[in-house]
Protein backbone atom coordinates (compact mmCIF):
# COMPACT_ATOMS: atom_id res chain seq x y z
CA UNK A 1 0.00 0.00 0.00
CA UNK A 2 2.50 2.55 1.17
CA UNK A 3 4.80 0.69 -1.15
CA UNK A 4 4.09 2.91 -4.09
CA UNK A 5 4.51 6.07 -2.10
CA UNK A 6 7.73 5.15 -0.46
CA UNK A 7 9.25 3.58 -3.54
CA UNK A 8 9.79 7.04 -4.99
CA UNK A 9 10.93 8.68 -1.84
CA UNK A 10 13.68 6.87 -0.01
CA UNK A 11 16.06 4.74 -2.00
CA UNK A 12 18.13 3.53 0.89
CA UNK A 13 20.13 0.41 0.18
CA UNK A 14 21.42 -0.29 -3.27
CA UNK A 15 19.61 -3.13 -4.97
CA UNK A 16 16.74 -3.21 -2.54
CA UNK A 17 13.45 -1.47 -3.11
CA UNK A 18 12.83 1.41 -0.79
CA UNK A 19 9.92 -0.30 0.94
CA UNK A 20 11.99 -3.33 1.75
CA UNK A 21 14.88 -1.20 2.90
CA UNK A 22 12.67 0.91 5.13
CA UNK A 23 10.91 -2.12 6.55
CA UNK A 24 14.24 -3.75 7.26
CA UNK A 25 15.64 -0.64 8.91
CA UNK A 26 12.63 -0.13 11.16
CA UNK A 27 12.40 -3.83 12.07
CA UNK A 28 16.14 -4.07 12.73
CA UNK A 29 15.99 -1.03 14.98
CA UNK A 30 13.02 -2.57 16.83
CA UNK A 31 14.93 -5.80 17.28
CA UNK A 32 18.10 -4.16 18.58
CA UNK A 33 16.34 -1.69 20.87
CA UNK A 34 14.17 -4.49 22.23
CA UNK A 35 17.14 -6.77 22.78
CA UNK A 36 19.08 -4.03 24.55
CA UNK A 37 15.98 -3.37 26.60
CA UNK A 38 15.85 -7.00 27.74
CA UNK A 39 19.33 -6.93 29.18
CA UNK A 40 19.22 -3.41 30.62
CA UNK A 41 15.69 -3.28 32.01
CA UNK A 42 15.83 -3.43 35.79
CA UNK A 43 12.32 -4.76 36.10
CA UNK A 44 11.71 -8.30 34.79
CA UNK A 45 8.27 -7.34 33.49
CA UNK A 46 9.80 -4.56 31.44
CA UNK A 47 12.40 -7.01 30.18
CA UNK A 48 9.60 -9.34 29.08
CA UNK A 49 7.86 -6.50 27.26
CA UNK A 50 11.08 -5.59 25.51
CA UNK A 51 11.41 -9.24 24.54
CA UNK A 52 7.98 -9.07 22.91
CA UNK A 53 9.15 -6.04 20.97
CA UNK A 54 12.19 -7.94 19.71
CA UNK A 55 10.06 -10.91 18.73
CA UNK A 56 7.81 -8.63 16.74
CA UNK A 57 10.75 -7.19 14.91
CA UNK A 58 11.96 -10.68 14.06
CA UNK A 59 8.46 -11.64 12.88
CA UNK A 60 8.43 -8.64 10.56
CA UNK A 61 11.80 -9.70 9.19
CA UNK A 62 10.37 -13.17 8.58
CA UNK A 63 7.50 -11.69 6.57
CA UNK A 64 10.00 -9.58 4.69
CA UNK A 65 11.77 -12.80 3.69
CA UNK A 66 8.59 -14.55 2.50
CA UNK A 67 8.28 -16.73 5.60
CA UNK A 68 4.70 -15.72 6.40
CA UNK A 69 3.79 -18.88 8.21
CA UNK A 70 6.84 -18.73 10.46
CA UNK A 71 6.10 -15.10 11.23
CA UNK A 72 2.59 -16.00 12.36
CA UNK A 73 3.84 -18.96 14.37
CA UNK A 74 6.56 -16.79 15.87
CA UNK A 75 3.94 -14.38 17.21
CA UNK A 76 1.56 -17.12 18.34
CA UNK A 77 4.15 -19.30 20.06
CA UNK A 78 6.65 -16.77 21.34
CA UNK A 79 4.60 -13.68 22.05
CA UNK A 80 1.36 -15.49 22.70
CA UNK A 81 2.56 -18.36 24.84
CA UNK A 82 6.19 -18.21 25.93
CA UNK A 83 6.36 -14.59 27.06
CA UNK A 84 2.94 -14.85 28.65
CA UNK A 85 4.31 -17.82 30.57
CA UNK A 86 7.28 -15.70 31.64
CA UNK A 87 4.98 -12.91 32.80
CA UNK A 88 2.79 -15.40 34.58
CA UNK A 89 5.72 -16.85 36.50
CA UNK A 90 7.06 -13.38 37.30
CA UNK A 91 3.72 -12.26 38.67
CA UNK A 92 2.99 -15.53 40.38
CA UNK A 93 6.32 -15.66 42.18
CA UNK A 94 6.15 -11.96 42.97
CA UNK A 95 9.68 -11.33 41.67
CA UNK A 96 8.60 -8.21 39.86
CA UNK A 97 10.91 -6.04 41.89
CA UNK A 98 13.73 -3.93 40.55
CA UNK A 99 16.89 -5.92 39.99
CA UNK A 100 20.13 -4.63 41.34
CA UNK A 101 22.25 -4.11 38.27
CA UNK A 102 25.16 -2.34 39.94
CA UNK A 103 26.12 -4.91 42.53
CA UNK A 104 28.40 -7.56 41.08
CA UNK A 105 28.96 -10.60 43.29
CA UNK A 106 31.59 -12.09 41.03
CA UNK A 107 34.17 -9.38 40.57
CA UNK A 108 35.31 -8.88 37.02
CA UNK A 109 32.52 -10.96 35.58
CA UNK A 110 30.96 -8.13 33.62
CA UNK A 111 34.06 -6.85 31.85
CA UNK A 112 34.99 -10.44 31.12
CA UNK A 113 31.55 -11.07 29.66
CA UNK A 114 31.77 -8.02 27.42
CA UNK A 115 35.25 -8.98 26.24
CA UNK A 116 34.24 -12.58 25.57
CA UNK A 117 31.13 -11.68 23.65
CA UNK A 118 33.05 -9.01 21.77
CA UNK A 119 35.55 -11.67 20.73
CA UNK A 120 32.78 -14.01 19.63
CA UNK A 121 31.10 -11.25 17.66
CA UNK A 122 34.42 -10.33 16.04
CA UNK A 123 35.00 -13.99 15.16
CA UNK A 124 31.54 -14.24 13.59
CA UNK A 125 32.05 -11.09 11.57
CA UNK A 126 35.52 -12.15 10.43
CA UNK A 127 34.27 -15.60 9.48
CA UNK A 128 31.30 -14.10 7.69
CA UNK A 129 33.41 -11.67 5.72
CA UNK A 130 36.53 -13.67 4.94
CA UNK A 131 35.34 -17.23 4.49
CA UNK A 132 33.45 -18.52 1.54
CA UNK A 133 30.34 -19.70 3.38
CA UNK A 134 28.28 -19.72 0.24
CA UNK A 135 29.35 -23.02 -1.29
CA UNK A 136 26.99 -22.65 -4.19
CA UNK A 137 24.82 -25.60 -3.16
CA UNK A 138 21.20 -24.61 -3.64
CA UNK A 139 17.97 -26.15 -2.38
CA UNK A 140 19.55 -29.15 -0.71
CA UNK A 141 16.53 -29.91 1.46
CA UNK A 142 13.97 -28.80 -1.09
CA UNK A 143 13.09 -25.73 -3.10
CA UNK A 144 11.65 -22.91 -1.05
CA UNK A 145 10.29 -20.87 -3.95
CA UNK A 146 9.82 -22.23 -7.41
CA UNK A 147 9.03 -19.41 -9.78
CA UNK A 148 7.63 -21.88 -12.31
CA UNK A 149 5.18 -23.38 -9.79
CA UNK A 150 4.44 -20.72 -7.24
CA UNK A 151 3.17 -22.20 -4.00
CA UNK A 152 2.42 -20.65 -0.66
CA UNK A 153 5.18 -20.96 1.89
CA UNK A 154 2.77 -22.89 4.12
CA UNK A 155 2.43 -25.67 1.55
CA UNK A 156 6.17 -25.87 0.91
CA UNK A 157 7.06 -25.86 4.57
CA UNK A 158 4.36 -28.40 5.37
CA UNK A 159 5.60 -30.75 2.70
CA UNK A 160 9.15 -30.41 3.97
CA UNK A 161 8.27 -31.00 7.60
CA UNK A 162 6.05 -34.00 6.88
CA UNK A 163 8.38 -35.71 4.41
CA UNK A 164 12.06 -34.84 4.71
CA UNK A 165 11.88 -33.95 8.36
CA UNK A 166 9.21 -36.41 9.45
CA UNK A 167 11.41 -38.16 11.99
CA UNK A 168 12.61 -34.96 13.69
CA UNK A 169 8.99 -33.86 13.71
CA UNK A 170 7.93 -37.00 15.57
CA UNK A 171 10.83 -36.51 17.96
CA UNK A 172 9.72 -32.98 18.77
CA UNK A 173 6.25 -34.31 19.47
CA UNK A 174 7.79 -36.70 21.99
CA UNK A 175 9.88 -33.85 23.37
CA UNK A 176 6.78 -31.77 24.00
CA UNK A 177 5.08 -34.60 25.84
CA UNK A 178 8.18 -35.14 27.95
CA UNK A 179 8.34 -31.42 28.69
CA UNK A 180 4.73 -31.32 29.80
CA UNK A 181 5.14 -34.35 32.04
CA UNK A 182 8.37 -32.90 33.41
CA UNK A 183 6.72 -29.60 34.19
CA UNK A 184 3.85 -31.34 35.96
CA UNK A 185 6.29 -33.39 38.04
CA UNK A 186 8.32 -30.29 38.90
CA UNK A 187 5.32 -28.22 39.79
CA UNK A 188 3.27 -30.68 41.77
CA UNK A 189 3.50 -30.91 45.49
CA UNK A 190 4.01 -34.20 47.20
CA UNK A 191 1.00 -35.82 48.79
CA UNK A 192 2.19 -34.84 52.26
CA UNK A 193 2.43 -31.17 51.31
CA UNK A 194 -0.93 -31.32 49.64
CA UNK A 195 -2.61 -32.68 52.78
CA UNK A 196 -2.14 -29.40 54.59
CA UNK A 197 -4.29 -27.05 52.63
CA UNK A 198 -7.66 -26.86 51.12
CA UNK A 199 -8.96 -27.04 47.63
CA UNK A 200 -8.98 -23.28 47.34
CA UNK A 201 -5.45 -23.36 46.05
CA UNK A 202 -6.90 -23.29 42.59
CA UNK A 203 -7.18 -19.60 43.38
CA UNK A 204 -3.71 -18.77 42.31
CA UNK A 205 -1.10 -16.14 42.75
CA UNK A 206 -1.82 -15.28 46.36
CA UNK A 207 0.53 -12.38 46.37
CA UNK A 208 -0.58 -9.62 48.69
CA UNK A 209 1.96 -7.15 47.37
CA UNK A 210 1.66 -5.35 44.13
CA UNK A 211 4.44 -4.57 41.71
CA UNK A 212 7.32 -2.60 43.02
CA UNK A 213 7.43 -4.55 46.24
CA UNK A 214 9.26 -7.68 47.07
CA UNK A 215 6.46 -10.15 47.02
CA UNK A 216 6.05 -11.98 50.25
CA UNK A 217 3.03 -14.09 49.74
CA UNK A 218 3.47 -17.33 48.57
CA UNK A 219 4.04 -19.98 46.16
CA UNK A 220 3.73 -22.04 49.31
CA UNK A 221 0.04 -21.29 49.22
CA UNK A 222 -0.51 -23.31 46.12
CA UNK A 223 0.80 -24.11 42.75
CA UNK A 224 -0.70 -22.74 39.61
CA UNK A 225 -2.05 -24.82 36.82
CA UNK A 226 0.16 -22.74 34.63
CA UNK A 227 0.91 -25.34 32.04
CA UNK A 228 -2.20 -27.29 32.50
CA UNK A 229 -1.10 -29.69 35.11
CA UNK A 230 -3.78 -32.10 36.08
CA UNK A 231 -2.80 -32.87 39.61
CA UNK A 232 -5.08 -30.36 41.29
CA UNK A 233 -8.16 -32.45 41.06
CA UNK A 234 -6.62 -35.80 41.65
CA UNK A 235 -4.93 -34.69 44.82
Amino acid at each position, binding site marked *: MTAAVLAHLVPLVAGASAVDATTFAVAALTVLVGAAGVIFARNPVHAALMLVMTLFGVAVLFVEQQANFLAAVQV*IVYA*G*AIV*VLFLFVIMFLGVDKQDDLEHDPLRGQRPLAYVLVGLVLAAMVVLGVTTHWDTGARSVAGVARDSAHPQSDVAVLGKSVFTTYLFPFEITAALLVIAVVGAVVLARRSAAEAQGDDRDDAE*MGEDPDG*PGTTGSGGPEDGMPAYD*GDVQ*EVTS
Partner: protein
Amino acid sequence: MTSPLLATDPLFAHGVHWPELLIVVVKVVVAFGALLVAVMMMIWFERKVISDMQARIGPNRAGPYGLLQSMADGIKLFFKEDLIPDQADRVVFRLAPYLSILPAFLSFAIVPVGGFVTISHHTFELQVADPPIGILFLLAMSSLSVYGVMLAGWSSGSKYPLLGAVRAAAQMISYEAAMGMSVIMVVLLAGTLSTRGIVLHQSQTFFGSWNLVRTGIVPFLIFFVAITAETNRPPFDLVEADSELVGGFNTEYSSLRFALFYLAEFMNTITMSAVVVTLFLGGPDGPTAHVPVLSWLIPVGWFLGKTLIFLFAAVWLRGALPRLRYDQLMDLGWKVLIPVSLGWLLIVASALVWHWWCLVVAAALAVLGGLLWRSVRVGAARMADGDPAGGVVVR
Protein backbone atom coordinates in the same frame (compact mmCIF):
# COMPACT_ATOMS: atom_id res chain seq x y z
CA MET B 1 6.06 -4.42 -5.39
CA THR B 2 3.20 -5.68 -3.31
CA SER B 3 3.86 -7.17 0.03
CA PRO B 4 3.62 -10.97 0.06
CA LEU B 5 0.98 -10.57 2.74
CA LEU B 6 -1.43 -8.99 0.29
CA ALA B 7 -0.61 -11.04 -2.75
CA THR B 8 -3.92 -12.89 -3.04
CA ASP B 9 -6.20 -9.87 -3.12
CA PRO B 10 -7.55 -9.32 -6.67
CA LEU B 11 -7.32 -5.61 -6.03
CA PHE B 12 -3.56 -5.72 -6.32
CA ALA B 13 -3.41 -7.97 -9.36
CA HIS B 14 -2.30 -5.08 -11.55
CA GLY B 15 0.09 -3.46 -9.13
CA VAL B 16 -0.53 -0.73 -6.63
CA HIS B 17 -1.47 2.72 -7.86
CA TRP B 18 -3.41 5.61 -6.42
CA PRO B 19 -6.92 4.15 -6.97
CA GLU B 20 -5.97 0.96 -5.16
CA LEU B 21 -4.40 2.96 -2.36
CA LEU B 22 -7.53 5.05 -2.08
CA ILE B 23 -9.74 1.97 -1.92
CA VAL B 24 -7.61 0.49 0.83
CA VAL B 25 -7.69 3.67 2.87
CA VAL B 26 -11.45 3.94 2.47
CA LYS B 27 -11.86 0.30 3.50
CA VAL B 28 -9.81 0.84 6.65
CA VAL B 29 -11.65 4.02 7.61
CA VAL B 30 -15.08 2.54 6.94
CA ALA B 31 -14.26 -0.63 8.86
CA PHE B 32 -12.95 1.34 11.82
CA GLY B 33 -15.94 3.65 11.87
CA ALA B 34 -18.41 0.83 11.46
CA LEU B 35 -16.77 -1.12 14.25
CA LEU B 36 -16.91 1.84 16.62
CA VAL B 37 -20.58 2.45 15.87
CA ALA B 38 -21.22 -1.28 16.22
CA VAL B 39 -19.59 -1.21 19.64
CA MET B 40 -21.85 1.60 20.77
CA MET B 41 -24.91 -0.24 19.48
CA MET B 42 -23.69 -3.45 21.08
CA ILE B 43 -23.37 -1.83 24.49
CA TRP B 44 -26.91 -0.51 24.17
CA PHE B 45 -28.12 -3.86 22.86
CA GLU B 46 -26.53 -5.75 25.72
CA ARG B 47 -27.98 -3.46 28.36
CA LYS B 48 -31.42 -3.57 26.80
CA VAL B 49 -31.50 -7.34 26.39
CA ILE B 50 -30.15 -7.94 29.87
CA SER B 51 -32.71 -5.62 31.36
CA ASP B 52 -35.46 -7.35 29.43
CA MET B 53 -34.26 -10.67 30.79
CA GLN B 54 -34.27 -9.23 34.29
CA ALA B 55 -37.70 -7.66 33.82
CA ARG B 56 -36.57 -4.07 34.05
CA ILE B 57 -36.49 -1.24 31.57
CA GLY B 58 -32.83 -0.44 31.10
CA PRO B 59 -31.47 2.73 29.57
CA ASN B 60 -34.28 4.87 28.22
CA ARG B 61 -33.27 8.46 28.82
CA ALA B 62 -30.66 9.42 26.24
CA GLY B 63 -32.21 9.44 22.81
CA PRO B 64 -35.06 7.23 21.54
CA TYR B 65 -35.11 3.94 23.46
CA GLY B 66 -31.90 5.06 25.17
CA LEU B 67 -29.98 4.54 21.94
CA LEU B 68 -27.56 7.34 22.73
CA GLN B 69 -26.80 6.01 26.20
CA SER B 70 -23.37 4.67 25.26
CA MET B 71 -22.45 7.99 23.70
CA ALA B 72 -23.51 9.78 26.87
CA ASP B 73 -21.42 7.36 28.92
CA GLY B 74 -18.49 7.90 26.62
CA ILE B 75 -18.68 11.67 26.97
CA LYS B 76 -18.97 11.35 30.72
CA LEU B 77 -15.88 9.12 30.89
CA PHE B 78 -14.02 11.44 28.59
CA PHE B 79 -14.41 14.37 30.98
CA LYS B 80 -13.57 12.46 34.12
CA GLU B 81 -10.32 12.93 35.94
CA ASP B 82 -7.56 10.63 34.78
CA LEU B 83 -6.07 8.91 37.79
CA ILE B 84 -2.83 6.99 38.01
CA PRO B 85 -2.36 5.16 41.30
CA ASP B 86 0.68 5.92 43.41
CA GLN B 87 1.96 2.36 43.29
CA ALA B 88 1.45 1.99 39.56
CA ASP B 89 4.11 1.33 37.01
CA ARG B 90 3.40 4.47 35.04
CA VAL B 91 4.65 3.54 31.60
CA VAL B 92 2.98 0.14 31.49
CA PHE B 93 -0.16 1.52 33.10
CA ARG B 94 -0.54 3.98 30.24
CA LEU B 95 0.42 1.44 27.59
CA ALA B 96 -1.97 -1.34 28.62
CA PRO B 97 -5.30 0.07 27.29
CA TYR B 98 -3.81 0.51 23.84
CA LEU B 99 -2.37 -2.98 23.91
CA SER B 100 -5.83 -4.31 24.54
CA ILE B 101 -7.66 -2.26 21.90
CA LEU B 102 -5.15 -2.77 19.10
CA PRO B 103 -5.54 -6.57 18.62
CA ALA B 104 -9.31 -6.19 19.01
CA PHE B 105 -9.47 -3.94 16.00
CA LEU B 106 -6.74 -5.60 13.95
CA SER B 107 -8.36 -9.02 14.06
CA PHE B 108 -11.50 -7.59 12.47
CA ALA B 109 -9.42 -6.74 9.41
CA ILE B 110 -9.42 -10.32 8.15
CA VAL B 111 -13.17 -10.91 8.45
CA PRO B 112 -14.90 -11.10 5.05
CA VAL B 113 -17.93 -8.88 5.46
CA GLY B 114 -19.37 -9.40 2.00
CA GLY B 115 -18.63 -10.59 -1.49
CA PHE B 116 -16.80 -8.77 -4.26
CA VAL B 117 -17.54 -5.26 -5.39
CA THR B 118 -16.50 -3.66 -8.65
CA ILE B 119 -16.20 0.09 -8.90
CA SER B 120 -14.99 1.33 -12.28
CA HIS B 121 -12.98 -1.78 -13.14
CA HIS B 122 -11.48 -2.13 -9.70
CA THR B 123 -12.76 -5.34 -8.18
CA PHE B 124 -12.13 -5.67 -4.50
CA GLU B 125 -13.17 -7.82 -1.58
CA LEU B 126 -15.38 -6.44 1.15
CA GLN B 127 -12.78 -7.14 3.78
CA VAL B 128 -9.96 -4.95 4.99
CA ALA B 129 -7.18 -7.42 4.23
CA ASP B 130 -6.96 -10.97 2.97
CA PRO B 131 -3.52 -12.28 3.84
CA PRO B 132 -2.73 -15.87 2.80
CA ILE B 133 -2.16 -16.71 6.48
CA GLY B 134 -5.46 -15.05 7.43
CA ILE B 135 -6.68 -17.29 10.18
CA LEU B 136 -3.24 -17.53 11.76
CA PHE B 137 -3.29 -13.77 11.95
CA LEU B 138 -6.48 -14.06 13.95
CA LEU B 139 -4.88 -16.56 16.33
CA ALA B 140 -1.85 -14.30 16.70
CA MET B 141 -4.00 -11.30 17.52
CA SER B 142 -6.16 -13.18 19.98
CA SER B 143 -3.04 -14.47 21.71
CA LEU B 144 -1.79 -10.90 21.97
CA SER B 145 -4.99 -9.62 23.49
CA VAL B 146 -3.97 -11.17 26.79
CA TYR B 147 -1.19 -8.61 27.19
CA GLY B 148 -3.53 -5.66 27.65
CA VAL B 149 -5.40 -7.41 30.46
CA MET B 150 -2.29 -8.86 32.12
CA LEU B 151 -0.25 -5.69 32.07
CA ALA B 152 -3.18 -3.54 33.16
CA GLY B 153 -3.66 -5.76 36.18
CA TRP B 154 -0.01 -5.93 37.05
CA SER B 155 0.85 -2.29 36.53
CA SER B 156 -1.96 -1.07 38.76
CA GLY B 157 0.13 -1.99 41.78
CA SER B 158 -2.84 -3.30 43.68
CA LYS B 159 -3.71 -6.82 44.66
CA TYR B 160 -7.12 -7.41 43.11
CA PRO B 161 -6.06 -6.26 39.67
CA LEU B 162 -2.97 -8.45 40.03
CA LEU B 163 -5.15 -11.46 40.76
CA GLY B 164 -7.19 -10.61 37.69
CA ALA B 165 -4.01 -10.42 35.64
CA VAL B 166 -2.75 -13.81 36.77
CA ARG B 167 -6.13 -15.35 36.10
CA ALA B 168 -6.20 -13.79 32.67
CA ALA B 169 -2.85 -15.26 31.73
CA ALA B 170 -3.77 -18.79 32.73
CA GLN B 171 -7.28 -18.62 31.30
CA MET B 172 -6.36 -17.21 27.93
CA ILE B 173 -3.43 -19.56 27.36
CA SER B 174 -5.58 -22.54 28.31
CA TYR B 175 -8.39 -21.76 25.91
CA GLU B 176 -6.09 -20.71 23.12
CA ALA B 177 -5.20 -24.37 22.60
CA ALA B 178 -8.76 -25.60 22.16
CA MET B 179 -9.55 -22.64 19.97
CA GLY B 180 -6.59 -23.30 17.70
CA MET B 181 -7.51 -26.96 17.47
CA SER B 182 -11.04 -26.23 16.25
CA VAL B 183 -9.66 -23.74 13.75
CA ILE B 184 -7.35 -26.46 12.45
CA MET B 185 -10.35 -28.65 11.62
CA VAL B 186 -11.83 -25.88 9.51
CA VAL B 187 -8.49 -25.33 7.80
CA LEU B 188 -8.17 -29.06 7.12
CA LEU B 189 -11.46 -29.02 5.25
CA ALA B 190 -10.94 -25.78 3.38
CA GLY B 191 -7.32 -26.48 2.51
CA THR B 192 -6.42 -22.83 2.91
CA LEU B 193 -5.62 -20.43 5.71
CA SER B 194 -7.11 -17.43 3.97
CA THR B 195 -10.45 -16.36 5.45
CA ARG B 196 -11.77 -15.56 1.99
CA GLY B 197 -10.83 -19.07 0.88
CA ILE B 198 -12.58 -20.56 3.89
CA VAL B 199 -15.74 -18.60 3.13
CA LEU B 200 -15.68 -19.49 -0.58
CA HIS B 201 -15.21 -23.13 0.32
CA GLN B 202 -18.44 -23.04 2.32
CA SER B 203 -20.54 -21.31 -0.28
CA GLN B 204 -21.63 -24.26 -2.44
CA THR B 205 -24.99 -25.03 -0.92
CA PHE B 206 -26.87 -23.03 1.63
CA PHE B 207 -26.30 -24.43 5.13
CA GLY B 208 -25.35 -27.89 3.88
CA SER B 209 -21.81 -26.90 2.95
CA TRP B 210 -21.20 -24.73 5.96
CA ASN B 211 -18.45 -25.92 8.25
CA LEU B 212 -20.99 -26.08 11.04
CA VAL B 213 -22.42 -29.13 9.29
CA ARG B 214 -19.29 -30.38 7.57
CA THR B 215 -17.07 -30.63 10.62
CA GLY B 216 -19.85 -31.98 12.74
CA ILE B 217 -21.20 -29.57 15.30
CA VAL B 218 -18.50 -30.30 17.87
CA PRO B 219 -15.70 -27.98 16.66
CA PHE B 220 -18.21 -25.16 16.43
CA LEU B 221 -19.26 -25.66 20.04
CA ILE B 222 -15.66 -25.89 21.20
CA PHE B 223 -14.76 -22.77 19.29
CA PHE B 224 -17.72 -20.86 20.67
CA VAL B 225 -16.91 -21.80 24.26
CA ALA B 226 -13.23 -21.02 23.70
CA ILE B 227 -13.84 -17.57 22.26
CA THR B 228 -16.25 -16.77 25.05
CA ALA B 229 -13.40 -17.53 27.43
CA GLU B 230 -10.85 -15.71 25.27
CA THR B 231 -12.87 -12.53 25.27
CA ASN B 232 -13.53 -12.87 29.01
CA ARG B 233 -17.25 -12.77 28.51
CA PRO B 234 -19.55 -14.23 31.16
CA PRO B 235 -19.68 -16.99 32.34
CA PHE B 236 -15.89 -16.93 31.96
CA ASP B 237 -15.36 -13.39 33.19
CA LEU B 238 -13.16 -14.42 36.10
CA VAL B 239 -10.69 -11.80 35.04
CA GLU B 240 -12.99 -9.01 36.10
CA ALA B 241 -15.29 -10.96 38.45
CA ASP B 242 -16.74 -7.95 40.26
CA SER B 243 -18.03 -9.93 43.19
CA GLU B 244 -14.61 -11.46 43.89
CA LEU B 245 -12.01 -9.04 42.58
CA VAL B 246 -13.81 -5.69 42.95
CA GLY B 247 -13.48 -4.98 39.25
CA GLY B 248 -10.65 -7.24 38.24
CA PHE B 249 -7.82 -6.04 36.09
CA ASN B 250 -9.32 -2.62 35.41
CA THR B 251 -10.20 -1.70 39.00
CA GLU B 252 -7.68 1.12 39.15
CA TYR B 253 -8.53 2.55 35.75
CA SER B 254 -10.72 5.57 35.28
CA SER B 255 -11.72 8.03 32.63
CA LEU B 256 -10.67 7.45 29.04
CA ARG B 257 -8.39 4.52 29.78
CA PHE B 258 -11.27 2.65 31.36
CA ALA B 259 -13.39 3.51 28.34
CA LEU B 260 -10.73 1.99 26.12
CA PHE B 261 -10.89 -1.31 28.01
CA TYR B 262 -14.63 -1.28 27.76
CA LEU B 263 -14.39 -0.58 24.06
CA ALA B 264 -11.86 -3.37 23.57
CA GLU B 265 -14.06 -5.89 25.35
CA PHE B 266 -17.07 -5.19 23.20
CA MET B 267 -15.00 -4.89 20.07
CA ASN B 268 -13.57 -8.32 20.84
CA THR B 269 -17.07 -9.71 21.29
CA ILE B 270 -18.17 -8.36 17.94
CA THR B 271 -15.02 -9.47 16.14
CA MET B 272 -15.18 -12.95 17.57
CA SER B 273 -18.85 -13.33 16.67
CA ALA B 274 -17.93 -12.29 13.15
CA VAL B 275 -15.13 -14.85 13.15
CA VAL B 276 -17.48 -17.66 14.23
CA VAL B 277 -19.74 -16.71 11.36
CA THR B 278 -16.77 -16.70 8.98
CA LEU B 279 -15.38 -20.03 10.10
CA PHE B 280 -18.50 -22.07 10.66
CA LEU B 281 -21.52 -20.33 9.15
CA GLY B 282 -20.21 -19.46 5.74
CA GLY B 283 -19.67 -15.79 6.41
CA PRO B 284 -21.68 -13.72 3.94
CA ASP B 285 -22.99 -16.85 2.21
CA GLY B 286 -26.70 -17.07 1.61
CA PRO B 287 -29.32 -16.91 -1.16
CA THR B 288 -29.04 -13.71 -3.13
CA ALA B 289 -31.36 -11.97 -5.52
CA HIS B 290 -30.36 -9.85 -8.47
CA VAL B 291 -30.92 -6.22 -7.61
CA PRO B 292 -29.51 -3.65 -10.03
CA VAL B 293 -26.86 -1.77 -8.07
CA LEU B 294 -27.29 -2.95 -4.55
CA SER B 295 -26.94 -6.71 -4.93
CA TRP B 296 -23.65 -6.58 -3.03
CA LEU B 297 -25.62 -5.55 0.04
CA ILE B 298 -27.42 -8.89 0.34
CA PRO B 299 -24.35 -10.92 1.42
CA VAL B 300 -23.52 -8.12 3.85
CA GLY B 301 -27.03 -8.47 5.20
CA TRP B 302 -26.57 -12.23 5.64
CA PHE B 303 -23.28 -11.61 7.42
CA LEU B 304 -24.79 -9.04 9.77
CA GLY B 305 -27.78 -11.23 10.48
CA LYS B 306 -25.64 -14.24 11.38
CA THR B 307 -23.35 -12.12 13.50
CA LEU B 308 -26.32 -10.70 15.37
CA ILE B 309 -27.31 -14.23 16.42
CA PHE B 310 -23.97 -14.68 18.14
CA LEU B 311 -24.04 -11.23 19.69
CA PHE B 312 -27.40 -12.11 21.15
CA ALA B 313 -26.05 -15.47 22.30
CA ALA B 314 -23.21 -13.70 24.08
CA VAL B 315 -25.67 -11.49 25.94
CA TRP B 316 -27.93 -14.44 26.60
CA LEU B 317 -25.06 -16.38 28.20
CA ARG B 318 -24.37 -13.42 30.43
CA GLY B 319 -27.99 -13.23 31.47
CA ALA B 320 -28.47 -16.94 32.00
CA LEU B 321 -25.31 -18.50 33.43
CA PRO B 322 -23.53 -17.94 36.74
CA ARG B 323 -19.80 -17.40 36.70
CA LEU B 324 -17.62 -20.51 36.80
CA ARG B 325 -15.30 -21.22 39.70
CA TYR B 326 -11.63 -21.07 38.83
CA ASP B 327 -10.98 -24.81 39.03
CA GLN B 328 -14.12 -25.50 37.01
CA LEU B 329 -12.80 -23.17 34.36
CA MET B 330 -9.46 -24.96 34.20
CA ASP B 331 -11.13 -28.39 34.24
CA LEU B 332 -13.39 -27.42 31.37
CA GLY B 333 -10.48 -26.11 29.34
CA TRP B 334 -7.91 -28.80 29.93
CA LYS B 335 -9.94 -31.90 30.63
CA VAL B 336 -12.91 -31.45 28.34
CA LEU B 337 -12.29 -29.07 25.49
CA ILE B 338 -8.71 -30.00 24.63
CA PRO B 339 -9.13 -33.81 24.70
CA VAL B 340 -12.43 -33.64 22.83
CA SER B 341 -11.01 -31.32 20.19
CA LEU B 342 -7.94 -33.54 19.78
CA GLY B 343 -10.11 -36.60 19.33
CA TRP B 344 -12.48 -34.85 16.96
CA LEU B 345 -9.50 -33.57 14.98
CA LEU B 346 -8.39 -37.14 14.54
CA ILE B 347 -11.85 -38.16 13.36
CA VAL B 348 -12.12 -35.26 10.90
CA ALA B 349 -8.65 -35.95 9.53
CA SER B 350 -9.36 -39.66 9.08
CA ALA B 351 -12.69 -38.86 7.45
CA LEU B 352 -10.84 -36.76 4.92
CA VAL B 353 -8.41 -39.55 4.15
CA TRP B 354 -10.40 -42.76 4.61
CA HIS B 355 -13.99 -41.52 4.32
CA TRP B 356 -16.32 -43.90 6.17
CA TRP B 357 -13.45 -45.79 7.78
CA CYS B 358 -13.22 -42.84 10.13
CA LEU B 359 -15.97 -44.56 12.10
CA VAL B 360 -13.41 -47.19 13.07
CA VAL B 361 -11.13 -44.43 14.27
CA ALA B 362 -14.01 -42.92 16.19
CA ALA B 363 -14.76 -46.26 17.83
CA ALA B 364 -11.13 -46.78 18.75
CA LEU B 365 -11.01 -43.25 20.20
CA ALA B 366 -14.13 -43.91 22.22
CA VAL B 367 -12.59 -47.06 23.70
CA LEU B 368 -9.29 -45.35 24.46
CA GLY B 369 -11.04 -42.33 25.90
CA GLY B 370 -13.13 -44.55 28.11
CA LEU B 371 -10.03 -46.31 29.37
CA LEU B 372 -8.29 -43.02 30.03
CA TRP B 373 -11.30 -41.66 31.88
CA ARG B 374 -11.52 -44.80 33.96
CA SER B 375 -7.84 -44.68 34.85
CA VAL B 376 -8.11 -41.06 35.91
CA ARG B 377 -11.07 -41.96 38.08
CA VAL B 378 -9.14 -44.82 39.67
CA GLY B 379 -6.16 -42.55 40.25
CA ALA B 380 -8.35 -39.92 41.85
CA ALA B 381 -9.93 -42.52 44.10
CA ARG B 382 -6.51 -43.72 45.22
CA MET B 383 -5.39 -40.17 45.92
CA ALA B 384 -8.53 -39.63 47.96
CA ASP B 385 -7.63 -42.69 49.99
CA GLY B 386 -4.25 -41.17 50.68
CA ASP B 387 -2.54 -43.98 48.87
CA PRO B 388 -1.42 -42.63 45.50
CA ALA B 389 0.81 -45.63 44.92
CA GLY B 390 -2.29 -47.76 44.60
CA GLY B 391 -2.27 -51.48 44.96
CA VAL B 392 -4.84 -51.50 47.69
CA VAL B 393 -8.51 -50.78 47.25
CA VAL B 394 -9.95 -49.62 43.99
CA ARG B 395 -13.44 -48.30 44.12
